[in-house]
Protein backbone atom coordinates (compact mmCIF):
# COMPACT_ATOMS: atom_id res chain seq x y z
CA UNK A 1 0.00 0.00 0.00
CA UNK A 2 2.64 2.47 1.07
CA UNK A 3 4.90 1.19 -1.70
CA UNK A 4 2.13 1.87 -4.22
CA UNK A 5 1.60 5.32 -2.81
CA UNK A 6 5.26 6.23 -3.12
CA UNK A 7 5.55 4.65 -6.58
CA UNK A 8 2.50 6.61 -7.74
CA UNK A 9 3.98 9.79 -6.34
CA UNK A 10 7.17 9.12 -8.29
CA UNK A 11 5.24 8.52 -11.50
CA UNK A 12 3.23 11.64 -10.81
CA UNK A 13 6.35 13.73 -10.34
CA UNK A 14 7.78 12.25 -13.54
CA UNK A 15 4.72 13.20 -15.58
CA UNK A 16 4.53 16.43 -13.67
CA UNK A 17 7.95 17.52 -14.84
CA UNK A 18 6.66 17.36 -18.43
CA UNK A 19 3.70 19.52 -17.43
CA UNK A 20 6.05 21.88 -15.64
CA UNK A 21 8.18 22.33 -18.77
CA UNK A 22 5.16 23.23 -20.87
CA UNK A 23 3.75 25.48 -18.16
CA UNK A 24 7.01 27.48 -18.07
CA UNK A 25 6.48 28.75 -21.62
CA UNK A 26 2.84 29.56 -20.92
CA UNK A 27 3.60 31.50 -17.83
CA UNK A 28 6.50 33.35 -19.44
CA UNK A 29 4.25 34.78 -22.14
CA UNK A 30 1.53 35.58 -19.67
CA UNK A 31 3.91 37.22 -17.24
CA UNK A 32 5.22 39.61 -19.88
CA UNK A 33 2.31 40.25 -22.20
CA UNK A 34 -0.54 39.55 -19.79
CA UNK A 35 -2.13 37.39 -22.44
CA UNK A 36 -2.97 33.78 -22.83
CA UNK A 37 -1.57 32.02 -25.88
CA UNK A 38 -3.94 29.13 -26.45
CA UNK A 39 -2.06 28.17 -29.62
CA UNK A 40 0.98 27.28 -27.51
CA UNK A 41 0.42 23.52 -27.60
CA UNK A 42 -0.22 23.62 -31.34
CA UNK A 43 3.02 25.59 -31.79
CA UNK A 44 4.95 22.81 -30.09
CA UNK A 45 3.09 20.23 -32.13
CA UNK A 46 4.19 21.90 -35.37
CA UNK A 47 7.78 21.68 -34.16
CA UNK A 48 7.38 18.00 -33.26
CA UNK A 49 5.80 17.18 -36.60
CA UNK A 50 8.70 18.90 -38.35
CA UNK A 51 11.04 16.72 -36.27
CA UNK A 52 9.07 13.59 -37.14
CA UNK A 53 9.18 14.55 -40.79
CA UNK A 54 12.98 14.78 -40.97
CA UNK A 55 13.22 11.59 -38.89
CA UNK A 56 10.90 9.65 -41.18
CA UNK A 57 12.08 11.06 -44.51
CA UNK A 58 15.84 11.18 -44.04
CA UNK A 59 16.39 8.97 -40.97
CA UNK A 60 17.89 11.98 -39.20
CA UNK A 61 19.60 11.39 -35.87
CA UNK A 62 18.43 12.80 -32.57
CA UNK A 63 20.46 15.99 -32.84
CA UNK A 64 18.98 16.97 -36.18
CA UNK A 65 15.52 16.01 -34.94
CA UNK A 66 15.98 18.12 -31.81
CA UNK A 67 17.18 21.10 -33.82
CA UNK A 68 14.32 20.78 -36.30
CA UNK A 69 11.79 20.51 -33.49
CA UNK A 70 13.16 23.62 -31.86
CA UNK A 71 13.26 25.59 -35.11
CA UNK A 72 9.77 24.43 -36.06
CA UNK A 73 8.36 25.51 -32.72
CA UNK A 74 10.02 28.90 -32.92
CA UNK A 75 8.83 29.42 -36.49
CA UNK A 76 5.26 28.50 -35.54
CA UNK A 77 5.57 30.73 -32.48
CA UNK A 78 6.59 33.67 -34.68
CA UNK A 79 3.60 33.00 -36.90
CA UNK A 80 1.29 33.07 -33.89
CA UNK A 81 2.89 36.20 -32.49
CA UNK A 82 2.70 38.13 -35.76
CA UNK A 83 -0.90 37.16 -36.38
CA UNK A 84 -2.49 37.05 -32.94
CA UNK A 85 -0.47 39.27 -30.65
CA UNK A 86 1.46 41.95 -32.53
CA UNK A 87 -1.53 43.45 -34.38
CA UNK A 88 -3.61 43.54 -31.19
CA UNK A 89 -1.14 45.09 -28.84
CA UNK A 90 -3.37 48.08 -28.17
CA UNK A 91 -6.54 46.03 -28.22
CA UNK A 92 -8.08 43.79 -25.63
CA UNK A 93 -6.41 40.69 -24.23
CA UNK A 94 -9.54 38.70 -25.00
CA UNK A 95 -9.31 39.39 -28.73
CA UNK A 96 -5.76 38.05 -28.80
CA UNK A 97 -6.84 34.96 -26.89
CA UNK A 98 -9.70 34.24 -29.29
CA UNK A 99 -7.37 34.77 -32.24
CA UNK A 100 -4.84 32.34 -30.78
CA UNK A 101 -7.67 29.86 -30.25
CA UNK A 102 -8.54 30.01 -33.95
CA UNK A 103 -4.89 29.67 -34.90
CA UNK A 104 -4.58 26.65 -32.61
CA UNK A 105 -7.20 24.83 -34.68
CA UNK A 106 -5.55 26.00 -37.89
CA UNK A 107 -2.09 24.76 -36.91
CA UNK A 108 -3.47 21.44 -35.75
CA UNK A 109 -5.20 20.99 -39.09
CA UNK A 110 -1.99 21.83 -40.95
CA UNK A 111 -0.06 19.26 -38.91
CA UNK A 112 -2.59 16.49 -39.39
CA UNK A 113 -2.96 17.22 -43.10
CA UNK A 114 0.82 17.03 -43.50
CA UNK A 115 1.20 13.80 -41.52
CA UNK A 116 -2.21 12.15 -41.38
CA UNK A 117 -1.51 9.02 -39.30
CA UNK A 118 -2.75 8.97 -35.74
CA UNK A 119 0.67 8.49 -34.19
CA UNK A 120 4.29 8.57 -35.30
CA UNK A 121 7.43 7.14 -33.72
CA UNK A 122 9.91 9.61 -32.28
CA UNK A 123 13.61 8.84 -31.69
CA UNK A 124 14.40 8.24 -28.01
CA UNK A 125 17.13 10.19 -26.28
CA UNK A 126 18.06 8.50 -23.03
CA UNK A 127 17.59 4.77 -22.91
CA UNK A 128 18.55 2.15 -20.41
CA UNK A 129 16.93 0.24 -17.61
CA UNK A 130 14.93 2.09 -14.99
CA UNK A 131 16.76 3.13 -11.87
CA UNK A 132 15.83 0.98 -8.89
CA UNK A 133 15.77 2.51 -5.45
CA UNK A 134 14.68 -0.20 -3.07
CA UNK A 135 11.25 -1.31 -4.32
CA UNK A 136 10.73 1.79 -6.44
CA UNK A 137 11.32 2.31 -10.13
CA UNK A 138 12.24 5.53 -11.83
CA UNK A 139 12.79 5.81 -15.56
CA UNK A 140 15.97 7.60 -16.57
CA UNK A 141 14.12 9.73 -19.12
CA UNK A 142 11.84 11.05 -16.42
CA UNK A 143 14.70 11.93 -14.14
CA UNK A 144 16.36 13.72 -17.05
CA UNK A 145 13.16 15.61 -17.77
CA UNK A 146 12.80 16.74 -14.17
CA UNK A 147 16.38 17.98 -14.15
CA UNK A 148 15.87 19.87 -17.42
CA UNK A 149 12.66 21.43 -16.09
CA UNK A 150 14.49 22.69 -13.01
CA UNK A 151 17.43 23.96 -15.08
CA UNK A 152 15.14 25.80 -17.49
CA UNK A 153 13.24 27.27 -14.57
CA UNK A 154 16.40 28.53 -12.89
CA UNK A 155 17.76 29.89 -16.18
CA UNK A 156 14.54 31.73 -16.96
CA UNK A 157 14.31 33.02 -13.42
CA UNK A 158 17.85 34.35 -13.73
CA UNK A 159 17.11 35.87 -17.11
CA UNK A 160 14.03 37.66 -15.85
CA UNK A 161 15.49 38.75 -12.52
CA UNK A 162 19.10 39.54 -13.30
CA UNK A 163 19.69 40.28 -16.97
CA UNK A 164 19.11 43.55 -18.80
CA UNK A 165 16.64 41.86 -21.13
CA UNK A 166 14.73 40.57 -18.11
CA UNK A 167 14.64 44.06 -16.65
CA UNK A 168 13.11 45.33 -19.90
CA UNK A 169 10.54 42.52 -19.81
CA UNK A 170 9.60 43.31 -16.24
CA UNK A 171 9.30 46.99 -17.08
CA UNK A 172 6.99 46.14 -19.97
CA UNK A 173 4.93 43.82 -17.80
CA UNK A 174 4.58 46.59 -15.23
CA UNK A 175 3.60 49.33 -17.66
CA UNK A 176 4.19 49.04 -21.42
CA UNK A 177 3.61 52.72 -22.07
CA UNK A 178 6.11 53.86 -19.47
CA UNK A 179 8.63 51.35 -20.83
CA UNK A 180 8.21 52.88 -24.27
CA UNK A 181 8.67 56.39 -22.90
CA UNK A 182 12.00 55.55 -21.32
CA UNK A 183 13.23 54.27 -24.66
CA UNK A 184 12.61 50.53 -24.67
CA UNK A 185 11.77 48.92 -27.96
CA UNK A 186 8.67 47.22 -26.58
CA UNK A 187 7.74 45.43 -29.81
CA UNK A 188 11.19 43.91 -30.14
CA UNK A 189 11.35 42.74 -26.53
CA UNK A 190 7.92 41.17 -26.73
CA UNK A 191 8.85 39.45 -29.96
CA UNK A 192 12.02 38.06 -28.38
CA UNK A 193 10.14 36.94 -25.27
CA UNK A 194 7.68 35.14 -27.48
CA UNK A 195 10.47 33.42 -29.38
CA UNK A 196 12.08 32.43 -26.11
CA UNK A 197 8.83 30.93 -24.85
CA UNK A 198 8.39 29.03 -28.11
CA UNK A 199 11.94 27.70 -27.81
CA UNK A 200 11.21 26.52 -24.26
CA UNK A 201 8.10 24.88 -25.67
CA UNK A 202 10.19 23.22 -28.37
CA UNK A 203 12.57 21.79 -25.77
CA UNK A 204 9.64 20.62 -23.67
CA UNK A 205 7.93 18.99 -26.62
CA UNK A 206 11.08 17.28 -27.78
CA UNK A 207 11.80 15.87 -24.31
CA UNK A 208 8.25 14.63 -23.87
CA UNK A 209 8.13 13.07 -27.33
CA UNK A 210 11.47 11.34 -26.94
CA UNK A 211 10.36 9.98 -23.58
CA UNK A 212 7.09 8.66 -24.98
CA UNK A 213 8.92 7.68 -28.19
CA UNK A 214 5.85 8.67 -30.17
CA UNK A 215 3.70 11.68 -31.00
CA UNK A 216 -0.03 11.50 -31.53
CA UNK A 217 -2.35 13.96 -33.23
CA UNK A 218 -3.74 14.80 -29.80
CA UNK A 219 -0.47 16.37 -28.66
CA UNK A 220 -1.47 19.99 -29.33
CA UNK A 221 -4.58 19.81 -27.22
CA UNK A 222 -2.88 17.77 -24.53
CA UNK A 223 -0.01 20.24 -24.20
CA UNK A 224 -2.25 23.30 -24.16
CA UNK A 225 -4.52 21.88 -21.48
CA UNK A 226 -1.89 20.41 -19.21
CA UNK A 227 0.30 23.47 -19.52
CA UNK A 228 -2.63 25.75 -18.81
CA UNK A 229 -3.78 23.79 -15.76
CA UNK A 230 -0.24 23.59 -14.39
CA UNK A 231 0.46 27.28 -14.99
CA UNK A 232 -2.84 28.30 -13.45
CA UNK A 233 -2.36 26.00 -10.47
CA UNK A 234 0.87 27.72 -9.63
CA UNK A 235 -0.45 31.16 -10.49
CA UNK A 236 -0.11 32.52 -14.03
CA UNK A 237 3.01 34.58 -14.45
CA UNK A 238 5.08 32.87 -11.76
CA UNK A 239 7.94 30.69 -13.03
CA UNK A 240 8.44 28.69 -9.85
CA UNK A 241 4.67 28.43 -9.60
CA UNK A 242 4.60 26.79 -13.03
CA UNK A 243 7.00 24.07 -11.87
CA UNK A 244 5.18 23.50 -8.60
CA UNK A 245 1.83 23.49 -10.40
CA UNK A 246 3.11 21.01 -12.96
CA UNK A 247 4.42 18.60 -10.36
CA UNK A 248 1.26 18.93 -8.30
CA UNK A 249 -0.92 18.22 -11.31
CA UNK A 250 1.19 15.19 -12.14
CA UNK A 251 0.83 13.74 -8.67
CA UNK A 252 -2.92 14.37 -8.49
CA UNK A 253 -3.37 12.74 -11.89
CA UNK A 254 -1.30 9.75 -10.86
CA UNK A 255 -3.49 9.20 -7.79
CA UNK A 256 -6.65 9.64 -9.88
CA UNK A 257 -5.35 7.11 -12.41
CA UNK A 258 -4.42 4.68 -9.69
CA UNK A 259 -7.77 4.95 -7.91
CA UNK A 260 -10.29 5.44 -10.73
CA UNK A 261 -8.73 4.74 -14.12
CA UNK A 262 -7.61 6.73 -17.17
CA UNK A 263 -10.79 8.63 -18.01
CA UNK A 264 -11.13 9.99 -14.51
CA UNK A 265 -7.49 11.08 -14.68
CA UNK A 266 -8.29 13.45 -17.54
CA UNK A 267 -11.51 14.47 -15.86
CA UNK A 268 -9.64 15.32 -12.68
CA UNK A 269 -7.37 17.76 -14.56
CA UNK A 270 -10.36 19.68 -15.93
CA UNK A 271 -12.21 19.62 -12.63
CA UNK A 272 -9.14 20.92 -10.82
CA UNK A 273 -8.83 23.74 -13.34
CA UNK A 274 -12.51 24.62 -13.05
CA UNK A 275 -12.60 24.52 -9.26
CA UNK A 276 -9.36 26.44 -9.04
CA UNK A 277 -10.68 29.20 -11.26
CA UNK A 278 -13.84 29.43 -9.21
CA UNK A 279 -12.20 29.30 -5.81
CA UNK A 280 -8.77 30.86 -6.34
CA UNK A 281 -8.49 32.42 -9.80
CA UNK A 282 -4.99 33.66 -9.08
CA UNK A 283 -3.63 30.16 -8.53
CA UNK A 284 -2.27 28.72 -5.33
CA UNK A 285 0.60 31.19 -5.23
CA UNK A 286 -1.19 34.07 -6.94
CA UNK A 287 -2.49 37.38 -5.71
CA UNK A 288 -5.90 37.68 -7.27
CA UNK A 289 -7.34 40.38 -5.08
CA UNK A 290 -4.54 42.78 -5.83
CA UNK A 291 -5.06 42.14 -9.54
CA UNK A 292 -8.78 42.68 -9.39
CA UNK A 293 -8.50 45.87 -7.38
CA UNK A 294 -5.92 47.29 -9.74
CA UNK A 295 -8.13 46.45 -12.68
CA UNK A 296 -11.14 48.19 -11.21
CA UNK A 297 -9.17 51.25 -10.18
CA UNK A 298 -7.68 51.64 -13.63
CA UNK A 299 -11.12 51.76 -15.18
CA UNK A 300 -12.59 54.23 -12.75
Amino acid at each position, binding site marked *: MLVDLVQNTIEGLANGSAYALIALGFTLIFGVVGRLNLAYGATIMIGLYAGIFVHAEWQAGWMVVAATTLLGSVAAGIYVERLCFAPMRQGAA*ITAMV*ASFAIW*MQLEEVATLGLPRHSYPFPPLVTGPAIEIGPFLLRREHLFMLVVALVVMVALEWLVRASRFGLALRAIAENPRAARFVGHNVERSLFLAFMLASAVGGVAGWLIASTDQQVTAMFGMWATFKGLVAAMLGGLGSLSGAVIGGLLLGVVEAYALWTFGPQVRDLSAY*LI*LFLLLVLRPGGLLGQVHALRDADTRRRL
Partner: protein
Amino acid sequence: MDSFTIGVVSNIGMMSLLALSAYLLLLVGEVSFGQQAFFGIGAYAAGIATVLWGWPLMAALLFAAFCGSATQLGVALPTLRLRGFYFSVATLAFAEAVRIVFELFRYRREVDGGLAGPDGEHGFRDIRYIYDNGIGTQDFLVLIWTLLVLALIAFIVLERSRIGPRLRMIGEDDVMAALNGIDVVRCKLAASAGAGALAGLAGGFYAHSVTYIEPGVFNVMLGVHTLAYGLIGGLGTAFGPLLGVLIDIGFLESFRGLSQYRMIVFGGLVVLLLILRPRGLLDEIAVNRLAGLFRRAQ
Protein backbone atom coordinates in the same frame (compact mmCIF):
# COMPACT_ATOMS: atom_id res chain seq x y z
CA MET B 1 -35.00 19.72 -52.30
CA ASP B 2 -32.57 16.84 -52.45
CA SER B 3 -31.31 15.31 -49.26
CA PHE B 4 -27.88 16.98 -49.46
CA THR B 5 -29.43 20.44 -49.58
CA ILE B 6 -31.84 19.57 -46.78
CA GLY B 7 -28.90 18.38 -44.69
CA VAL B 8 -26.89 21.54 -45.30
CA VAL B 9 -29.82 23.89 -44.68
CA SER B 10 -30.88 22.15 -41.45
CA ASN B 11 -27.27 22.17 -40.34
CA ILE B 12 -27.14 25.92 -40.95
CA GLY B 13 -30.30 26.32 -38.87
CA MET B 14 -29.02 24.28 -35.93
CA MET B 15 -25.59 25.90 -35.93
CA SER B 16 -27.18 29.33 -36.10
CA LEU B 17 -29.13 28.57 -32.92
CA LEU B 18 -25.92 27.47 -31.26
CA ALA B 19 -24.04 30.51 -32.57
CA LEU B 20 -26.79 32.75 -31.18
CA SER B 21 -26.17 31.31 -27.73
CA ALA B 22 -22.50 32.31 -27.89
CA TYR B 23 -23.54 35.67 -29.36
CA LEU B 24 -25.84 36.40 -26.44
CA LEU B 25 -22.93 35.93 -24.06
CA LEU B 26 -20.63 38.02 -26.27
CA LEU B 27 -23.16 40.83 -25.97
CA VAL B 28 -22.61 40.98 -22.22
CA GLY B 29 -18.87 40.74 -22.78
CA GLU B 30 -18.33 37.11 -21.84
CA VAL B 31 -16.30 34.92 -24.17
CA SER B 32 -17.46 31.35 -23.63
CA PHE B 33 -15.45 28.47 -25.05
CA GLY B 34 -17.94 26.00 -23.61
CA GLN B 35 -21.25 26.33 -25.47
CA GLN B 36 -20.68 22.92 -27.04
CA ALA B 37 -21.21 21.37 -23.58
CA PHE B 38 -24.75 22.74 -23.29
CA PHE B 39 -25.35 21.73 -26.90
CA GLY B 40 -24.28 18.21 -25.91
CA ILE B 41 -26.37 18.20 -22.75
CA GLY B 42 -29.37 19.23 -24.83
CA ALA B 43 -28.65 16.51 -27.37
CA TYR B 44 -28.41 13.79 -24.72
CA ALA B 45 -31.43 15.09 -22.81
CA ALA B 46 -33.66 15.19 -25.89
CA GLY B 47 -32.46 11.78 -27.06
CA ILE B 48 -33.10 10.18 -23.68
CA ALA B 49 -36.51 11.81 -23.49
CA THR B 50 -37.78 10.49 -26.81
CA VAL B 51 -35.99 7.13 -26.93
CA LEU B 52 -36.05 5.94 -23.33
CA TRP B 53 -38.96 7.80 -21.85
CA GLY B 54 -41.15 7.86 -24.95
CA TRP B 55 -41.84 11.58 -24.77
CA PRO B 56 -43.21 13.48 -27.77
CA LEU B 57 -40.71 15.53 -29.75
CA MET B 58 -41.87 18.96 -28.61
CA ALA B 59 -41.67 18.02 -24.94
CA ALA B 60 -38.22 16.55 -25.51
CA LEU B 61 -36.99 19.73 -27.20
CA LEU B 62 -38.38 21.80 -24.36
CA PHE B 63 -36.64 19.50 -21.91
CA ALA B 64 -33.38 19.91 -23.85
CA ALA B 65 -33.65 23.69 -23.69
CA PHE B 66 -34.45 23.48 -19.99
CA CYS B 67 -31.45 21.21 -19.25
CA GLY B 68 -29.11 23.45 -21.23
CA SER B 69 -30.43 26.52 -19.49
CA ALA B 70 -30.26 25.03 -16.00
CA THR B 71 -26.69 23.77 -16.38
CA GLN B 72 -25.47 27.01 -17.90
CA LEU B 73 -27.07 28.89 -15.05
CA GLY B 74 -25.35 26.53 -12.62
CA VAL B 75 -22.01 27.20 -14.28
CA ALA B 76 -22.63 30.92 -14.51
CA LEU B 77 -23.36 31.38 -10.80
CA PRO B 78 -19.81 30.65 -9.63
CA THR B 79 -17.95 31.77 -12.76
CA LEU B 80 -19.52 35.11 -13.61
CA ARG B 81 -17.46 37.00 -11.08
CA LEU B 82 -14.36 35.87 -12.97
CA ARG B 83 -12.92 38.42 -15.32
CA GLY B 84 -12.08 38.12 -18.98
CA PHE B 85 -10.15 35.06 -19.93
CA TYR B 86 -10.51 33.41 -16.52
CA PHE B 87 -14.16 32.96 -17.43
CA SER B 88 -13.24 31.65 -20.88
CA VAL B 89 -10.81 29.11 -19.50
CA ALA B 90 -13.32 28.02 -16.84
CA THR B 91 -15.96 27.37 -19.52
CA LEU B 92 -13.40 25.52 -21.62
CA ALA B 93 -12.47 23.29 -18.67
CA PHE B 94 -16.12 22.70 -17.86
CA ALA B 95 -16.92 21.72 -21.44
CA GLU B 96 -14.05 19.24 -21.63
CA ALA B 97 -15.08 17.77 -18.27
CA VAL B 98 -18.62 17.35 -19.60
CA ARG B 99 -17.29 15.60 -22.69
CA ILE B 100 -15.46 13.07 -20.51
CA VAL B 101 -18.56 12.60 -18.36
CA PHE B 102 -20.42 11.71 -21.58
CA GLU B 103 -17.75 9.08 -22.21
CA LEU B 104 -18.46 7.57 -18.80
CA PHE B 105 -22.22 8.03 -18.98
CA ARG B 106 -24.16 4.78 -19.42
CA TYR B 107 -27.93 4.71 -19.20
CA ARG B 108 -29.19 1.67 -21.12
CA ARG B 109 -32.72 0.34 -21.03
CA GLU B 110 -34.70 -2.20 -22.95
CA VAL B 111 -36.80 -0.51 -25.61
CA ASP B 112 -38.75 -2.55 -28.20
CA GLY B 113 -36.74 -5.69 -27.54
CA GLY B 114 -33.32 -4.06 -27.85
CA LEU B 115 -31.02 -2.11 -25.57
CA ALA B 116 -31.08 1.60 -26.19
CA GLY B 117 -29.61 4.69 -24.61
CA PRO B 118 -26.23 6.35 -24.15
CA ASP B 119 -23.41 3.82 -24.03
CA GLY B 120 -20.34 5.66 -22.81
CA GLU B 121 -17.72 6.30 -25.45
CA HIS B 122 -19.72 4.32 -28.01
CA GLY B 123 -22.22 7.14 -28.10
CA PHE B 124 -25.97 7.14 -28.28
CA ARG B 125 -27.44 5.32 -31.27
CA ASP B 126 -30.84 5.22 -32.95
CA ILE B 127 -32.50 8.44 -31.91
CA ARG B 128 -35.05 7.73 -34.60
CA TYR B 129 -38.08 9.63 -33.41
CA ILE B 130 -38.61 11.66 -36.56
CA TYR B 131 -38.23 8.60 -38.78
CA ASP B 132 -40.47 6.34 -36.65
CA ASN B 133 -43.20 8.94 -36.49
CA GLY B 134 -43.31 9.81 -40.16
CA ILE B 135 -41.84 13.28 -39.80
CA GLY B 136 -39.88 13.87 -42.99
CA THR B 137 -36.50 15.57 -42.95
CA GLN B 138 -38.12 18.43 -44.81
CA ASP B 139 -40.74 18.93 -42.08
CA PHE B 140 -37.99 18.78 -39.50
CA LEU B 141 -36.10 21.42 -41.45
CA VAL B 142 -39.15 23.68 -41.33
CA LEU B 143 -39.40 23.11 -37.57
CA ILE B 144 -35.74 24.05 -37.04
CA TRP B 145 -36.03 27.20 -39.09
CA THR B 146 -39.32 28.19 -37.45
CA LEU B 147 -37.62 28.17 -34.08
CA LEU B 148 -34.58 29.95 -35.49
CA VAL B 149 -36.80 32.70 -36.90
CA LEU B 150 -38.62 32.94 -33.56
CA ALA B 151 -35.27 33.27 -31.81
CA LEU B 152 -34.17 35.98 -34.23
CA ILE B 153 -37.43 37.88 -33.70
CA ALA B 154 -36.91 37.59 -29.95
CA PHE B 155 -33.40 39.01 -30.36
CA ILE B 156 -34.66 41.92 -32.47
CA VAL B 157 -37.39 42.72 -29.94
CA LEU B 158 -34.80 42.50 -27.18
CA GLU B 159 -32.43 44.85 -28.99
CA ARG B 160 -35.17 47.42 -29.48
CA SER B 161 -36.33 47.25 -25.89
CA ARG B 162 -34.48 48.81 -22.98
CA ILE B 163 -32.75 45.51 -22.26
CA GLY B 164 -30.64 45.48 -25.43
CA PRO B 165 -28.67 48.66 -24.70
CA ARG B 166 -28.28 47.51 -21.11
CA LEU B 167 -26.69 44.25 -22.19
CA ARG B 168 -24.37 46.08 -24.60
CA MET B 169 -23.41 48.54 -21.91
CA ILE B 170 -22.45 45.68 -19.60
CA GLY B 171 -20.43 44.19 -22.45
CA GLU B 172 -18.64 47.49 -22.94
CA ASP B 173 -17.81 48.11 -19.28
CA ASP B 174 -19.58 46.39 -16.44
CA VAL B 175 -18.27 48.69 -13.73
CA MET B 176 -19.67 51.66 -15.62
CA ALA B 177 -22.95 49.82 -16.15
CA ALA B 178 -23.20 49.07 -12.44
CA LEU B 179 -22.53 52.71 -11.64
CA ASN B 180 -25.43 53.60 -13.90
CA GLY B 181 -27.78 51.50 -11.86
CA ILE B 182 -27.88 48.36 -14.00
CA ASP B 183 -28.09 45.11 -12.08
CA VAL B 184 -25.09 43.54 -13.80
CA VAL B 185 -25.27 40.15 -12.10
CA ARG B 186 -28.95 39.69 -12.85
CA CYS B 187 -28.52 40.66 -16.50
CA LYS B 188 -25.57 38.32 -16.93
CA LEU B 189 -27.42 35.45 -15.28
CA ALA B 190 -30.43 36.05 -17.52
CA ALA B 191 -28.16 36.10 -20.58
CA SER B 192 -26.56 32.84 -19.44
CA ALA B 193 -29.92 31.17 -18.94
CA GLY B 194 -31.00 32.27 -22.41
CA ALA B 195 -27.74 31.16 -23.98
CA GLY B 196 -27.99 27.74 -22.33
CA ALA B 197 -31.56 27.32 -23.55
CA LEU B 198 -30.59 28.16 -27.14
CA ALA B 199 -27.63 25.77 -27.06
CA GLY B 200 -29.72 23.01 -25.48
CA LEU B 201 -32.47 23.46 -28.06
CA ALA B 202 -29.94 23.32 -30.89
CA GLY B 203 -28.57 20.12 -29.33
CA GLY B 204 -32.03 18.59 -29.16
CA PHE B 205 -32.51 19.28 -32.86
CA TYR B 206 -29.07 17.94 -33.64
CA ALA B 207 -29.61 14.61 -31.86
CA HIS B 208 -32.83 13.98 -33.75
CA SER B 209 -31.50 15.09 -37.07
CA VAL B 210 -28.38 12.90 -37.11
CA THR B 211 -29.88 10.03 -35.00
CA TYR B 212 -26.44 9.16 -33.59
CA ILE B 213 -24.43 11.27 -31.17
CA GLU B 214 -21.08 10.53 -29.61
CA PRO B 215 -19.05 12.42 -26.99
CA GLY B 216 -16.34 13.32 -29.51
CA VAL B 217 -18.74 15.58 -31.41
CA PHE B 218 -18.95 18.01 -28.50
CA ASN B 219 -15.26 18.89 -28.55
CA VAL B 220 -13.51 22.22 -28.50
CA MET B 221 -13.46 22.34 -32.29
CA LEU B 222 -17.23 22.82 -32.16
CA GLY B 223 -16.70 25.43 -29.47
CA VAL B 224 -14.34 27.47 -31.64
CA HIS B 225 -16.80 27.46 -34.48
CA THR B 226 -19.69 28.46 -32.26
CA LEU B 227 -17.82 31.42 -30.91
CA ALA B 228 -16.25 32.38 -34.20
CA TYR B 229 -19.56 32.60 -36.07
CA GLY B 230 -20.58 35.63 -34.07
CA LEU B 231 -17.12 37.17 -34.28
CA ILE B 232 -16.96 36.75 -38.06
CA GLY B 233 -20.55 37.64 -38.82
CA GLY B 234 -20.65 40.59 -36.50
CA LEU B 235 -21.80 41.60 -33.05
CA GLY B 236 -23.99 44.45 -34.25
CA THR B 237 -27.08 42.39 -34.91
CA ALA B 238 -28.44 38.90 -34.31
CA PHE B 239 -28.09 38.29 -38.06
CA GLY B 240 -24.31 38.43 -37.57
CA PRO B 241 -23.95 34.85 -36.26
CA LEU B 242 -26.22 33.68 -39.08
CA LEU B 243 -23.91 35.29 -41.61
CA GLY B 244 -20.95 33.58 -39.94
CA VAL B 245 -22.65 30.20 -40.19
CA LEU B 246 -23.53 30.84 -43.84
CA ILE B 247 -19.91 31.66 -44.63
CA ASP B 248 -18.63 28.54 -42.86
CA ILE B 249 -21.19 25.84 -43.62
CA GLY B 250 -22.84 27.32 -46.68
CA PHE B 251 -19.58 28.14 -48.38
CA LEU B 252 -16.58 26.30 -46.92
CA GLU B 253 -18.13 23.00 -45.97
CA SER B 254 -20.38 22.58 -48.97
CA PHE B 255 -17.66 22.86 -51.58
CA ARG B 256 -15.91 19.53 -51.74
CA GLY B 257 -12.53 20.94 -52.69
CA LEU B 258 -12.53 23.41 -49.85
CA SER B 259 -13.87 21.24 -47.06
CA GLN B 260 -10.54 19.52 -46.51
CA TYR B 261 -8.88 22.84 -45.79
CA ARG B 262 -11.91 24.18 -43.99
CA MET B 263 -10.29 24.75 -40.62
CA ILE B 264 -7.22 26.34 -42.16
CA VAL B 265 -9.25 28.84 -44.16
CA PHE B 266 -11.69 29.37 -41.32
CA GLY B 267 -9.02 29.92 -38.67
CA GLY B 268 -7.22 32.39 -40.92
CA LEU B 269 -10.47 34.18 -41.66
CA VAL B 270 -11.26 34.55 -37.96
CA VAL B 271 -7.85 36.03 -37.22
CA LEU B 272 -7.88 38.40 -40.19
CA LEU B 273 -11.32 39.66 -39.23
CA LEU B 274 -10.28 40.06 -35.60
CA ILE B 275 -7.43 42.29 -36.79
CA LEU B 276 -9.35 44.24 -39.41
CA ARG B 277 -12.86 44.26 -37.95
CA PRO B 278 -12.73 43.34 -34.26
CA ARG B 279 -16.51 43.26 -33.97
CA GLY B 280 -17.17 41.31 -37.16
CA LEU B 281 -18.53 42.07 -40.61
CA LEU B 282 -21.91 43.33 -39.40
CA ASP B 283 -20.63 45.39 -36.48
CA GLU B 284 -22.61 48.17 -34.80
CA ILE B 285 -21.40 50.81 -37.28
CA ALA B 286 -22.30 48.72 -40.31
CA VAL B 287 -25.71 47.92 -38.86
CA ASN B 288 -26.39 51.59 -38.19
CA ARG B 289 -25.36 52.54 -41.74
CA LEU B 290 -27.52 49.81 -43.24
CA ALA B 291 -30.47 50.93 -41.12
CA GLY B 292 -29.91 54.51 -42.34
CA LEU B 293 -29.86 53.42 -45.98
CA PHE B 294 -32.99 51.41 -45.41
CA ARG B 295 -34.81 54.40 -43.88
CA ARG B 296 -33.81 56.69 -46.73
CA ALA B 297 -35.01 54.18 -49.31
CA GLN B 298 -38.46 54.11 -47.76
